[in-house]
């Protein structure tokens, strides 16, 4: 009884979370409810490998850029470490081991810079939210921070 009540609350709350995502403007563009649909699936022009955001093509060199990866590590320790381990163990969010194998550079960089919209639209991001139940905070990363983080993820994946 108690458990189902709690589950109910969590379900209700996740609806709340999803429906109020992206509501940081007064434009009224986000219609409550519509975001909980896997909208992207129904949209033929949506590229689930790239995700939604400003990064359309990321140039990735064959070997890891050590300086960039180092900068990425610094950003990680301030803005990401609280929730993400470097192993494959889930903390608040998923562990980072193998993340560059699962997702394209564009998808990762779009997700970490355009978090709310991705959580509202992208099927893969939504699947993660169902597991973690905590919306990833938008940590307001600069473009170069996002790129550096990707390089750090590659290094972590031994690329």
């Amino acid at each position, binding site marked *: 009884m108690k458990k189902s009540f709690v589950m109910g609350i969590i379900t209700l709350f996740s609806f709340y979370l999803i429906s109020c995502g992206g509501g*940081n403007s*007064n434009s009224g563009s986000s219609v409550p409810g519509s975001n909980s649909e896997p909208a992207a699936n129904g949209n033929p022009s949506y590229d689930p490998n790239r995700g939604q955001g400003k990064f359309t093509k990321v140039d990735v060199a064959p070997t890891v850029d050590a300086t960039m990866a180092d900068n990425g590590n610094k950003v990680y*320790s301030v*803005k990401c*470490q609280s929730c993400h381990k470097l192993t494959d163990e889930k903390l*608040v969010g998923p562990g980072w081991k193998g993340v560059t194998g699962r997702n394209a550079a564009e998808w990762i960089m779009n997700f970490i810079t355009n978090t709310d919209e991705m959580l509202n639209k992208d099927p893969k991001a939504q699947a993660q939210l169902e597991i973690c*139940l905590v*919306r990833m905070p*938008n940590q307001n990363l600069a473009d170069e921070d996002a790129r550096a983080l990707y390089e750090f993820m590659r290094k972590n994946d031994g690329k």
Partner: protein
Amino acid sequence: MKQFIIRMTGLAAIALLLCMNACKPKNAGNTVSADAAKKSYVAPGQYDEFYNFVSGGFSGQMSVYGLPSGRLFRVIPVFSVDPEKGYGYSEESKPMLMTSHGFVPWDDLHHVQLSKTNGDYDGKWAFGNANNTPRVARIDLKTFRTAEIIELPNSGGNHSSPFITENTEYVVAGTRFSVPMDDTNGDIPINTYKKNFSGTLSFISVGKEDGKMDIAFQIKCPGFNFDLSRAGKGVSHGWFFFSCYNTEQANSLLEVNASQKDKDYIMAVNWKKAEEYLKAGKGKKQSVKYAHNVYSDKTHSATSEIKTEVIVLDSKELKDICYFMPCPKSPHGCDVSPTGEYIVGSGKLAAIIPVFSFDKMIKAITAKDFAGDVEGIPVIKYESALYGEVKKPGLGPLHTEFDNKGNAYTSFFVSSEVVKWNIKDLKVLDRAPTYYSVGHLCVAGGDTKTPNAKYLVAYNKITKDRFLPTGPELAQSAQLYDISGDKMEMILDFPTIGEPHYAQIAPASLISKNSQKFYKIEENANPYVTKGEGATKVVREGNKIHVYMTAIRSHFSPDNIEGVKMGDEVYFHITNMEQDWDVPHGFAVKGAINAELLIMPGETQTLKWVPDRVGIFPIYCTDFCSALHQEMQGYVRVSPAGSNVPLTFSLGAPVPKADSVVNK
């Protein structure tokens, strides 16, 4: 029996309703027009057109409403502690409330002024005055937080404040109570008032870019009560006008003794002339003691400094700074028209409203058209400076604001109404009742060069039956009027916090675009910041324990701390690692004789806690932050003094096997 009680209760309720109706003044209900709701309605999710910054009176705070909806958005803690926001409780904010008397947790904020450029609001800062322990505060309108507080020496009851000049060159602070100067012996009989008491006017300069306040100079004046003030603008820029009462210089039963004379004064102050005297070195350095407190958004903490000197210009010795204009009778409001040509005096006990002409005043000064002098200050002949009088305006005029069509709006306390009149022909055009006993009023931009005459708000002293009763203590009330047409139309009642005195209304677009969303963690320069969970630590320095803790949705790091001992002082330095809008974290610890912390994204705040007993103390996040907010918690273990439990801290550390077994 039970039925009897129910019946009696029912009868009593009917009787009460009848009585309430009977007590209502006539026509209270029909002053609201049919489309009032439409005019004040702002649909859910829509923004208001205006910000309304309202003084909190004896709450010591400033509140922010939206207009026309009357919705309350924020209460900005200014002069009073606010446990909800940790203001005055966190180590970082405590210095904001320091004064020369020590830490003062409360005050009485009466007037709000928005900073101006060229006589119009520029959306940078709001200023508020502390009426009890004289101070002026500056609120940053990017963060809606108190950025600076400066104390005023030689003052008692900083009432005619914080009115500002048209380019925010100065914020003034005139003393309501005259007092002996701070560097004289104050241990004197009160009835030596006339001989020993003085009034001072402080001119606080404001940094153009950073807003930093500094007492540029004070003007020493006769021992009157300086009640309200307004800066000249346009043609009268360079002058300031102060209403004075108790020119009888009574020190007791002022209700009677300060109401003897037919006329008191409006004092005109030529502050440009005062600046010249200051530059010429005519000021005298006086030894005083006052606090100057500044909050930094970089270190996320305040500093308090005691200053020891102020420069005083003496109005008796230095000619051409101050002039008196006789004004009937116990003047309160002293308001300047949008062009700066007219000065409106509102005598609380006067049957007319005198309107003075700046042009005539200057001519009278030039022609030395004086009726004598008071303590070395020339008194201009009443008729020589008078433009005209508004006849039979109402009872108990208090304050006047203006629209952009040449009209003035004056509040009447005794006759409970707002009266609209024309500045040129001084004819009364319209009257609107207020419920009840209006004090201040404000028009959107009503003290600027270009008022936006859409709305007027009356701030009432008495609420009585306007809202559902809440025992002896009732909400104060504001009433919104549409003044866009010929007739004023009441469209909304809304309750306010504390007692609203003056308020200002500014277009939302001027301010909302600059609103800060979070603090950049990279720029956090708090000495106790923790940038990343890898940097969390717990450090013992003697009996002080510093906890460098982070908060992010939804855990603290560390969340298990052991090795605290009785006699220790624990400082929780919490850095909110979030970098997004609207994600504060709260922090509280059981039994702390303190408040919570409310930490904005990217900010570091510190809570001091002195454990009072041995045991386990829960800590938790107080501001609902995510689906797992309820999991955002931890424990601190407190051991006896001299215990050998080592100081340790952890997050998610595995439970020792032996304990797991025992727990099963």
